């Protein structure tokens, strides 16, 4: 009897602690944040505070692909903001304005205003990497616009703006207008002893034509990928344009596709456009006379996708000339970017230090303390190798069939 009693008691005790109810969160009690904006604002006492803006999905109005408005508000997102000395303080304030518990795990993007980024983003990195709720694969970007405005703007084809921004980054391998920076990269770059931080840049651009008033032209704003924000330490020191970013990405990401535009040889007012595929970069570091040097070899295959010139693929000499033209075009793009990074910013965002350390670890120990200044002075040699292999579907040039007497 006693044994039966103890066994029953033990099972009842187990029931109490093994129900998995501790720390439970019901899905309809959560306010799912889809995007976060961080701005710098001045408080009434003159202190600089952080404004946190959270873009929260309104589930009743954000269903499916079309956002069938069963919530009847017509707004698939609800955006609120709060200001405080610290991010955590502001987030707590957001909680006091929300009828549901704010849940950060599904945030697609964190957007930081450039004024705030110029003051330093160490606290931002620290806050978001400490938080167990957040994904390490959340996109992080800077913006010259108000981050609060950017995260609350309806943009793209998706119902939720955060989802649209996520889509922009996902397919940016083709456009190459901004680096695909996630929280995990930001964290690693900040801790690195060689590589400096860089972040994608987002901008609001008027490029959408209203379907109801098309005569007004591009009036509505959309979020666009717009280059790279370059940091020294944790402070934003400058930006690279979308064109310069295309060259940067050769160093830091696997690139899928690029574009090269060259002037026609017989008529300089006309252009040929090439799609660059299988672009690869090999960085060979060297150490000469106490200074680091780098030899860059870019190899790519070009595909003629659009032309105003007369180009046929049966003329080998012309193809060779075109290859040289594309090489020069690409060389000038990469050189411009390198010039800006080395001479204007003086920071290594190209992972050159990392590559140098891998090849020359003992020399690296001498250079690591002031790597940026060594990088600034490092000689960089650039080799280009472009192979023009196809004219897409066409073999012969597109020329008019009408005959005109000369």
């Amino acid at each position, binding site marked *: 009897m006693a044994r039966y009693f103890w066994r029953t008691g033990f099972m009842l005790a187990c029931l109490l602690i093994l129900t998995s109810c501790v*720390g439970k969160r019901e899905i309809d009690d959560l306010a799912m944040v889809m995007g976060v904006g961080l701005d710098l604002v001045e408080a009434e006492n003159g202190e600089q505070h952080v404004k946190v803006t959270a873009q929260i999905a309104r589930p009743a109005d954000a269903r499916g692909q079309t956002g069938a408005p069963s919530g009847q508000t017509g707004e698939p997102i609800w955006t609120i903001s709060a200001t405080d000395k610290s991010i955590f303080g502001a987030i707590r304030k957001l909680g006091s304005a929300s009828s549901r518990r704010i849940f950060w795990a599904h945030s697609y993007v964190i957007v930081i205003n450039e004024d705030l980024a110029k003051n330093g983003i160490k606290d931002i990195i620290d806050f978001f*990497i400490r938080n167990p709720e957040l994904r390490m694969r959340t996109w992080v970007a800077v913006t010259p616009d108000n981050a609060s405005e950017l995260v609350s703007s309806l943009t793209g084809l998706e119902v939720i703006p955060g989802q649209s921004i996520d889509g922009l980054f996902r397919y940016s391998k083709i456009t190459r207008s901004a680096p695909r920076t996630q929280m995990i990269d930001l964290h690693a770059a900040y801790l690195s002893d060689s590589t400096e931080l860089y972040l994608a840049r987002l901008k609001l651009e008027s490029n959408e034509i209203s379907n109801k008033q098309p005569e007004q032209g591009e009036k509505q704003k959309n979020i666009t990928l717009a280059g790279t924000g370059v940091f020294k330490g944790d402070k934003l020191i400058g930006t690279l344009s979308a064109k310069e970013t295309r060259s940067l990405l050769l160093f830091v990401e696997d690139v899928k596709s690029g574009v090269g535009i060259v002037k026609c040889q017989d008529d300089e007012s006309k252009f040929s456009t090439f799609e660059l595929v299988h672009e690869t970069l090999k960085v060979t570091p060297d150490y000469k006379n106490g200074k680091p040097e780098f030899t860059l070899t870019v190899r790519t295959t070009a595909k003629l996708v659009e032309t105003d010139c007369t180009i046929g693929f049966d003329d080998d000499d012309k193809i060779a000339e075109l290859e040289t033209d594309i090489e020069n075009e690409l060389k000038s793009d990469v050189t411009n970017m390198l010039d800006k990074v080395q001479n204007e910013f003086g920071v290594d965002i190209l992972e050159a230090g990392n590559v140098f350390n*891998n090849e020359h670890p003992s020399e690296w120990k001498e250079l690591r303390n002031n790597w940026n200044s060594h990088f600034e002075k490092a000689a960089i040699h650039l080799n280009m190798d472009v192979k023009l292999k196809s004219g897409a579907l066409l073999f012969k040039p597109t020329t008019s069939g009408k005959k005109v007497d000369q």
Partner: protein
Amino acid sequence: MKYKITNGMYMALIINMLYPKAIGITQGSIAREVGSDMWISTLVATLLALLIFWLLVVVIQRIPELDIIDHSKVLFGPLFSKLVSLIMFIYFVLSFGPIMVTFVYHLKDFFLPDAPVILFIVVAVIVGSYAVYFGIEVIARISLIGLFCIILLNTLLIIGSLEDFDIRELLPVFEFGITSPILASRHHLADWSIVMMMCLVILPTVNNDEGWRRSSMFGVIFSLIFVVMWPILETGVLTSQVTSQYLVACMQMARSAHIGFFLHRYEMVMIAFFGISVLTQITIALLCASVCFSKLFGSKKYHPAILPSAIIMGAYGYWVVLNHNRAMGILENSWVTYSLSITLGIIGFMWIIGFFMKKKIKNAK
């Protein structure tokens, strides 16, 4: 212990006992010392473990029916065996600190931050004691399932992180010299010490004592295969600097894994696979402590010792995990010193002394 387990179960126990702490918490400690060379330290520790395992099997094989405590009784009498029991009991109580750090910090810090620490300790102790009550055979069978889960977990992680793997992060090799990775291997060797101490107690329950050496060697080699991919992936995906920042580096790795566009944050799935392995660690530590406790007081059955052992170990585990700073201090300093001293001391002493007491061993056989 009258139950017998197969050599396969024995290998599964070796792998499960090592795996939970070695893949993350240990790698964080190693990364703080040697950066991207953490996989080398893991390899060095495993090679050393292979050697110590060989000695351990030699020691127990002298009288294969008896565990290390009974060995000491045969060689030096009951009083010395009580001393060995006490030392081993203290060892297993101390081992509950790192085991609870692994269990609690994985679950509480990443999944249930609001839950009280005591809940995790109580659950671990109750579930562990329940399994111990049914004996080594049941635990060994569970560890076979645990092994299957480890394979699934590793596969999921490889699929989810290979896309972001950058081999350049593993270079340069021996960045901090050759001695540093060897020295840092002590953290992983301390993980191995729990496995070795378990073997000193349970090896006589393994069938076919002629196959012990082979099973142990394969157990160690398979453990290396399952564990070493973690420091390699952690370095290649997270970087060694990021790994060194975290208490539980493997969870950071799991949080960063993603399969394609749509399958993100499946760490909940991974932790479920991880659970059986950590449960095996808890139960084996409780079982071995209960066996030592019962032999300390001359009891033939270990069952009455389960409750007092569980209470002592639970209380110690609770004290350790209550404060992150204290937990990491113990884990990276005192635990490494004490665990390696006790393990190497017992195995080394019994191995050497066996050469001088061949007659007693022969008589006992």
